[in-house]
């Protein structure tokens, strides 16, 4: 079975502070992991995927197979990062976590 867990419903940080959105997964096969973001009044969109090993808008995420985690990180939060973030796992289907609201305060 595929499962994605995002333990925090809400993460509130000050502008300029580091951000880490946690994601843990469960899957017996070789996973593809993604982070999706939904800004206010916008559609859900892909932020980054583990196979690309890229940094998007200053965000990075490293797949840790030993800890079955794919945490999203950014060293310095900006107000425009405020949004809902979903971790997703693609095994035989794309499964989403419940999401974490990131609120960046000025």
């Amino acid at each position, binding site marked *: 079975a595929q499962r994605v867990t995002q333990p925090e419903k809400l993460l509130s940080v000050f502008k300029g502070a580091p951000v880490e959105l946690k994601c843990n997964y469960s899957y017996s096969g070789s996973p593809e992991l993604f982070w999706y973001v939904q800004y206010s009044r916008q*559609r*859900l969109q892909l932020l980054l995927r583990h196979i690309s090993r890229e940094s998007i808008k200053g965000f990075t995420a490293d797949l840790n197979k030993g800890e079955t985690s794919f945490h999203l990180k950014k060293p310095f939060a900006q107000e425009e990062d405020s949004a809902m973030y979903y971790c997703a796992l693609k095994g035989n289907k794309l499964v989403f976590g419940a999401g974490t609201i990131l609120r960046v305060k000025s």
Partner: protein
Amino acid sequence: EAGVAQSPRYKIIEKRQSVAFWCNPISGHATLYWYQQILGQGPKLLIQFQNNGVVDDSQLPKDRFSAERLKGVDSTLKIQPAKLEDSAVYLCASSRNDGRQKFSGNTIYFGEGSWLTVV
């Protein structure tokens, strides 16, 4: 390129009534998905089409939900009869993946969603 289009954006119906949602995927995208997103939860896959064939409908409540993708392009999702717990956002998404790739790596693009309230 034009994004995934969905209609209607908002719908309010009474329980036991029926409703239908329409989705037009991005041109050339072989795979189409319908997700249900209940308030406070992540999107849940209802059904996945590859062209006009069903790949996965294991979480589709088939006693009341149905979906079709005639001609492998547009798709409709129908609920009949609706229940209060069907109140959710119904997201349509598409990807280019034609199913032949073992490791897809294909981006899934989402529509803006159709908001359903059952009263």
